[in-house]
């Protein structure tokens, strides 16, 4: 005999999930229907079987390590989630770094050297001492101021400081004869360098005169931190060229004092062989 009670109601009745009206209806039906009572018993038994299935104990490893594993995986995922932007962030970061390097990178170090042909890199020279004029003809070292007084030759100075000195203190020339004059001191880095007045200076004028430079030519000596000549160049005042012949004569000569105030670096000294007639005017004023 087939019963028309929906299985949903029987199942719901078993679970106690029917409302009061449905419950009353099912209970009335069950009193009258043997088949449904049997079916309800079967369902109860089936539930009992389901509940009888024992749950196996979890492993000790699970009990003791699952917490840590979960937390570790969470932290790892958070780190990974940051790096998932790496395909975008890394190129951007590299590009930014390159840009910063290009913008911020200092100009390449430019040593004062003949090869670079640097001339008056730092025009505001602090060379204001009388040592600007160095002259020695008798082979002994002389104080710079004295040597300036002995100079009879007209002097042409590119340096403002030495111009002042010449106009104020130096007597007018009486015998025009070419004399090598120190015209300028240049150093790219040395701002405080000053030649001391009692510095021993090697007589180089004689060497220059022997060498007989054409008028208007400059002798540029590259001097190292000890004051000794390293390289020599001659030529016009803008771009003198390396002169190995004169360099062989002067190399190692003590051309400047070996003590400086400030950073000790290479610098250069220019000696100009000027025509005295062309440059006498400023001195006589």
């Amino acid at each position: 005999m087939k019963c028309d009670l929906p299985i949903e109601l029987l199942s719901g009745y078993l679970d106690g999930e029917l409302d009061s009206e449905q419950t009353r209806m099912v209970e009335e039906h069950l009193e009258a229907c043997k088949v449904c009572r049997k079916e309800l018993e079967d369902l109860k038994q089936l539930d009992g079987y389901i509940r009888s299935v024992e749950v196996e104990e979890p492993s000790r490893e699970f009990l003791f390590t699952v917490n840590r594993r979960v937390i570790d995986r969470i932290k790892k995922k958070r780190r990974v989630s940051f790096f998932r932007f790496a395909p975008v962030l890394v190129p951007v970061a590299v590009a930014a770094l390159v840009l910063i390097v290009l913008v911020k990178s200092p100009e390449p170090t430019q040593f004062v050297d003949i090869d670079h042909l640097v001339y008056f890199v730092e025009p505001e020279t602090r060379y204001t001492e009388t040592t600007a004029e160095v002259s020695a003809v008798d082979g002994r070292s002389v104080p710079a101021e004295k040597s300036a007084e002995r100079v009879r030759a007209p002097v042409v100075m590119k340096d403002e400081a030495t111009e002042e000195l010449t106009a104020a203190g130096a007597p007018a020339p009486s015998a025009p004869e070419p004399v090598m004059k120190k015209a300028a001191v240049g150093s790219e880095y040395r701002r405080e360098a000053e030649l001391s007045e009692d510095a021993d200076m090697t007589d180089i004028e004689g060497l220059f005169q022997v060498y007989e430079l054409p008028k208007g030519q400059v002798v540029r000596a590259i001097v190292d931190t000890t004051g000794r000549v390293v390289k020599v160049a001659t030529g016009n005042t803008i771009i003198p060229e390396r002169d190995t012949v004169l360099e062989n004569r002067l190399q190692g000569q003590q051309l400047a004092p070996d003590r400086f105030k400030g950073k000790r670096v290479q610098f250069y000294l220019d000696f100009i062989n000027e025509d005295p007639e062309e440059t006498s005017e400023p001195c006589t004023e």
Partner: protein
Amino acid sequence: MYNSVENDDVLIERVQGGDCEAYNPLVERYKLPLYKVMYRMMHNRDDAEDMVEEAFIKAYKAIKRFERGRSFFSWLCRIAVNNAINYLKKERRGNAESIEDVKYRLAARSGNPVEMTRQKMLKERITAAMEHLPSEYRTILVLRVEEEFSYDEISKILKIPRGTVMSRLARAREKLRTLFKEMEVNRT
């Protein structure tokens, strides 16, 4: 830290704020209840343990969407059950033991009364019948019969209407009874 007395909402709020260590007490609190649910669905210890771990990871990833005031365990169960259903669907396509194979295996054991008592036989049959249920039916039976969730709770966990819970549960019981009968071993 494991034995934190802070309630679920406080811990969840801390986790939502970025304190992942606050997740530890939640794992400790619910790993065994969730393992029981998973074991009854998977009928395998290793699979159940894996499912629990995966469920906690997925729950963490979705924790920002957790609404305060809800039951964290129900919410966790929903994630775990859905994950398990997906796993079971894939597994079933692979290596499902046929009902005939189950009957043969049970019959072979029943010849040895020491090894297999009647009670054990029944448990093996119901286990095998549950394994052959569609995962939706198995899930709803586990939640109702074994975990004793109410229809309303099941409705929230599975995101289905309450009426669907009632009808699906009834069909699941019918199907299970049919399978259980099919697996009865003919002792003759």
